């Protein structure tokens, strides 16, 4: 035990000596949370549009004002001919062009019909769709206000309540997402690199011939990183709670317990990576290349899993982050207990066991 303790101490020395890495390790979660909190959002704000108004009358001006004051759009340019549309799209700033036909309000008052055309730059299909929906809603709203007077129409009024997130804040998505991403990547990268480093430097052999058992070596390697990752988890939770108002409705103990479980899973994944990599470079590339993008894209962090094609939904089941994100959302936002997340927790435990078993099988105590 004493031997083990001094080994852990040595590992801590290694970590604390490299101040730059340490700074990055603790700075990374903070920077990412701030970026997601203040910078990146999938909502639309200030999309640039151009307007081609062939009639320039009272009503088209009014509609234009309505659109521009909505906060979704800002006017980039007033066009005068159809030819300019192509040019302006090619420059890449403008995402939507609105065209009013000539004699717009005259048509509207004479025939009760007037035409407006909306052209969106659909090379970004996701955004184009949202923009079109917003514009249509604004114009339809305006049309409704034109048709005042006695309303004989029967109608159903829908009252909508947004559960768990009344203000539709983005923080409820990015705090769990960032937490899963950071804990997974940082834990897996740190362990895999640090073990692969000993191999590459040849110091692994020194440890293998020492009285330490292989299990103790691995545990000693992992313990400091477990502590560091857990500090990261707490940092993210504190930032989310105090800066962005992310609630923690469920039990805090359960939340911390699940975080520990996830960190353990990530660490054992790191160990597995290190046992299959001959040097640091391979370990890094596997833990970076194979984990980063799939975790961002397939865990439900940015894009909802239920929209994906079925084969991808199936693949997403092997992403550990997916399960952790479900657990985090359930515990933090819905306040549900273990009863609702036992399945996800079991999956994470299962993954941990698989990774550990595989690593033990692959771990070589002898020289090649």
């Amino acid at each position, binding site marked *: 035990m004493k031997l083990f303790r001094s080994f852990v101490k040595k590992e801590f020395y290694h970590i604390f000596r*490299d101040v*730059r890495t340490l700074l*990055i390790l603790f700075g*990374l979660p903070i*920077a*990412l949370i701030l970026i*997601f909190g*203040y*910078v990146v959002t999938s*909502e639309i704000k*200030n*999309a*640039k549009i151009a307007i081609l108004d062939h009639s320039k009358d009272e009503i088209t001006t009014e509609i234009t004002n309505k659109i521009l004051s909505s906060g979704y759009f800002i006017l980039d340019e007033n066009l005068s001919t159809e030819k300019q549309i192509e040019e302006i799209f*090619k420059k*890449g700033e403008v995402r939507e062009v609105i065209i009013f036909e000539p004699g717009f309000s005259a048509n*509207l008052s004479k025939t*009760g*019909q*007037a*035409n*407006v*055309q*909306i052209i969106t*730059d*659909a*090379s970004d*299909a996701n955004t*184009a*769709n949202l923009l*079109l*929906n917003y514009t*249509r809603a604004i114009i*339809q709203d305006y*049309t409704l206000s034109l*048709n005042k007077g006695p309303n004989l*129409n*029967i*109608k*159903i*009024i*829908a*009252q*909508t309540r947004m559960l768990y*997130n009344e203000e539709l804040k*983005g923080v409820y998505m990015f705090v769990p997402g960032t937490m899963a991403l950071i804990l997974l990547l940082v834990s897996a*990268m740190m362990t895999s*690199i640090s073990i692969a480093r000993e191999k590459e430097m040849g110091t692994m052999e020194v440890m293998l011939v020492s009285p330490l058992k292989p299990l103790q070596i691995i545990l000693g390697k992992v313990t400091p990183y477990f502590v560091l990752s857990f500090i990261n988890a707490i940092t993210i939770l504190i930032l989310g709670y105090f800066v962005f108002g992310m609630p923690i409705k469920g039990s805090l103990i359960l939340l911390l317990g699940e975080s520990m479980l996830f960190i353990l899973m990530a660490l054992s994944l790191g160990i597995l990576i290190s046992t299959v*990599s001959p040097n*640091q470079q*391979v370990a890094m*590339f596997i833990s970076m290349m194979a984990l980063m*993008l799939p975790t961002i*894209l397939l865990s439900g962090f*940015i*894009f909802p899993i*239920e*929209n*994906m094609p079925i*084969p991808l939904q199936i693949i997403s089941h092997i992403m550990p982050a997916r399960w952790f994100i479900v657990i985090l959302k359930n515990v933090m936002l819905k306040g549900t207990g273990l009863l*609702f997340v036992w399945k996800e927790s079991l999956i994470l435990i299962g993954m941990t066991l698989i990774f550990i078993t595989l690593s033990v099988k692959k771990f070589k105590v002898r020289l090649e």
Partner: protein
Amino acid sequence: MNTIIHIIRKEFIQIFRNKTMLPIIFLLPIVQLLVLVFAATFEMKNINMVVVDQDLSSESRQLIGKFKGSPFFQIQLNTFSQKEAEEFLKADKADLILNIPSGFERNLLKENSANVQLLINAINGTTAGLTNGYASSVIADYNRDVIIENINLNPPSSQSNVNIEYSFWYNPEMNYKIYMLPGILGILITLIGMFLTALNLVREKEMGTIEQINVSPIKKYQFIVGKLFPFLCIALFELAFGLTIGKVIFNIPMLGSLPLLFLFASVYLLVALGIGLFVSTLSSTQQQVMFVTFFIMIVFIMMSGIFTPTESMPVWAQRANVMNPAAYFMRVIRMILLKGSGFMDIWKSFASLLIYAIIILGLATWKYRKIA
């Protein structure tokens, strides 16, 4: 010149000798490209819903029928119990509850208006907004049917109507994959290029082999060029390979000039690789390089506008993006491929990246010391 060619040849030999790295460099990115492109969509298909119909009238059934007929909604459960419905929402089995209170039909016929309640799981704000939009349009659809029935009963008064036509340019089928493929490909080549370059130099430091180069007559700039060129080639090769896959499998349009695209990509990669090189001249271990580059990478990617529109970011962040080479690249690669933008449309980004490349490579050369 000869010296540079020798260094480059040495690097290539080293790269191709490493049999464990080869599949990671060449296979992993392609597999990811093929799989991940499908994931990046906000398009809603199956919104699972629960119906709590406490009225059980013909009107309520008609409304539910409208939801059933919509391609967006899947009714998972019909129940009378509000509690059961909410349990469903809690367990993530549904994202929407439609509550039709008793007396719905009576109110509708007597008072001409009746309320229904929509409860939406709003943890993901974006999809909740869309769900609300789709549900409202189903209800609006129902209202319109009722209005049409009504108009047939009493002839229309003077109604104004604005017809909205719309068209989606450059992508009439609204295929999100053609937008995401260039973006994801961009991330992958940046990752590969930047990390390979950054790790390469510092690995020589860690192994001590850099000393041998330091005592040789190789000039600083020759060394830097020799370290950059092989990885630039690999990254450009992967770009070409990825674009071929995009063309063959996803049928992405290539409206603009490909030479222009590759010219722009080369300048971009010089910046990305230069940053990697610069970081590695400042670090002494692979671990340091790894974490610093990882940090820079992830900030660049997230702010580049690959998944989310950059205009929605606050102004200061958009200004800060001047420093983000990935932001230029994501914009321009999509403009050239999907819209056929020419040099005149992108020259500003091109010039900015060129200046950036000169600065960062200058810094890297200056920081590289031939002493230990």
